[in-house]
């Protein structure tokens, strides 16, 4: 069993494993643990194993499509795929939606030879909390199934942590890639808004949505982003600009890099006491890698967080109002409450949120003249207990929404554990379209630490077997 895309890709080329073996091993873990962890909404065993066999044949014939060739990946079930219907983990979504087949991001992964293993669980429509009264799995944290794995890309985050695939696609409107990344002890990247096309993805907040990778390491995320990035005119917000070399800059050194750190300790009532020390340990490693680390204070933190929550609710409400009117009870309780908040937001207030985003962009751009990267905790605590889970607590615990208001690239990397043994994440943020620097910093950190390679007991057992 291989933990990272990078290692599996090397093993494939060294003849130490095959794509079919990687895919079978991933499905074996799912067979053993998915009933408890709620990672998959649907599995594509037949097509995945056929794609794996094709990848093996191609590699044997000297056809090498790059580091994702033959690698098993999961896809969040709000993104369309050829294999079948998309549910958004909801009774509401018209099952004919997505009939056009693969979203551009999925087509790009397939074009790079990736093996799509299935569709992964989410919060309904990527918002709310799991609803036990609806006929969908409750995602659970592989580190402790009594705790939440984070959302809304719950299945992709939990699946990477559990070894059910080596990487996958999530989406992030207020933190939904970085939240499961921090809770599950894996790496997740929300790239710059517009960098990856989101056509073929069920929307939540049109001007806040991102599709991005979750995997064990920054190097793996770099390999995935290299395939995912690039313009597609079917997404009105897709940006047409050259794609950088994301893997070429992974040197392991941060010499000359200026990093500003805001621990955000006063912003959440859920902050665990050990967070400050864990973050200090992480920033010490950044310093040891050559970076200059200085304290900063993020401007307009509460206001920009509010700008995301207000704007996201308003945009989501516009999409959902027809169904909220006629099928209120078919929505999960948490989802309908979160989305209907948009009915209480006047249009002028929505526009004001957009104006504040512009002010925030200017202020943060000014901050980025003094530093090259910014670091914060991803969340104030580890995964919350499922039995006490509330949407308000989720929102309160996260330090991610700020960056959806601004659009900057932001990545969560594992940086340690709570005293209860739950993972904590460090968030690394860069200038717009400077994903390369974010990934390079994450890689340098992961060259000096092993938090991203720590595995929950169930993976340790699979490795031992």
């Amino acid at each position: 069993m291989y933990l990272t895309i990078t290692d599996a890709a090397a093993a494939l080329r060294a003849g130490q494993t095959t794509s079919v073996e990687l895919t079978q091993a991933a499905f074996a873990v799912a067979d053993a643990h998915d009933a408890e962890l709620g990672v998959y909404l649907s599995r594509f065993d037949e097509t995945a194993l056929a794609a794996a066999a094709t990848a093996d044949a191609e590699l044997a014939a000297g056809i090498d499509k790059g580091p994702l060739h033959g690698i098993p990946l999961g896809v969040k079930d709000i993104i369309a795929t050829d294999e079948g219907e998309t549910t958004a983990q909801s009774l509401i979504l018209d099952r004919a939606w997505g009939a056009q087949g693969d979203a551009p991001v999925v087509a790009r992964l397939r074009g790079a030879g990736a093996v799509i293993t299935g569709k992964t669980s989410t919060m309904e429509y990527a918002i709310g909390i799991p609803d036990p009264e609806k006929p969908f799995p409750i995602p659970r944290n592989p580190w402790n199934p009594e705790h939440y794995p984070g959302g809304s890309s719950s299945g992709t985050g939990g699946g990477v942590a559990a070894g059910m695939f080596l990487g996958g696609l999530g989406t992030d409107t207020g933190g939904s890639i970085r939240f499961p990344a921090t809770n599950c002890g894996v790496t997740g990247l929300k790239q710059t808004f517009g960098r990856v096309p989101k056509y073929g993805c069920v929307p939540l907040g049109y001007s806040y949505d991102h599709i991005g990778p979750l995997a064990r390491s920054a190097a793996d995320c770099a390999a995935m982003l290299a395939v995912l990035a690039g313009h597609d005119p079917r997404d009105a917000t897709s940006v047409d600009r050259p794609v950088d070399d994301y893997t070429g800059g992974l040197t392991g050194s941060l010499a000359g890099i200026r990093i500003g750190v805001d621990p955000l300790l006063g912003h959440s009532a859920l902050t665990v006491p050990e967070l400050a020390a864990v973050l200090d340990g992480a920033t010490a490693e950044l310093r040891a890698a050559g970076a200059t680390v200085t304290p900063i204070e993020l401007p307009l933190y509460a206001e920009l967080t509010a700008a995301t929550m207000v704007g996201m609710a308003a945009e989501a409400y516009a999409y959902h109002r027809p169904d909220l009117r006629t099928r209120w009870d078919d929505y999960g309780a948490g989802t309908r409450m979160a989305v209907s908040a948009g009915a209480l937001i006047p249009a002028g207030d929505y526009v004001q949120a957009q104006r504040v985003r512009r002010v925030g962009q200017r202020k943060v751009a000014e901050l980025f003249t003094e530093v090259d990267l910014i670091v914060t905790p991803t969340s104030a605590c580890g995964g919350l207990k499922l039995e006490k889970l509330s949407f308000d607590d989720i929102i309160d615990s996260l330090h991610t929404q700020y960056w959806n208001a601004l659009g900057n690239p932001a990545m969560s990397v594992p940086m340690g554990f709570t005293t209860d043994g739950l993972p904590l994440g460090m968030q690394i943020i860069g200038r717009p379209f400077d994903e390369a620097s974010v990934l390079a910093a994450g890689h340098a950190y992961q060259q000096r630490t092993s938090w991203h390679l720590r595995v929950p007991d169930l993976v340790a057992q699979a490795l031992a077997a």
Partner: protein
Amino acid sequence: MDADPAVLVPALLQAAGLTPSQEEVATMIADYPGRAAAIESLYAVREARYEEPDLVFRALL
């Protein structure tokens, strides 16, 4: 905040054609002051007074 959430929230929900349960309406009423305060904080950003929003619209598809 001048308006009474116990009056305003049910009225806005009715205008939107939404039919939450009484318990859900009570939760929304309780949450409303916090949301209203968050929105007020957006208007307190002095630099936004003459800022233009970046709304997506193109004359050509």
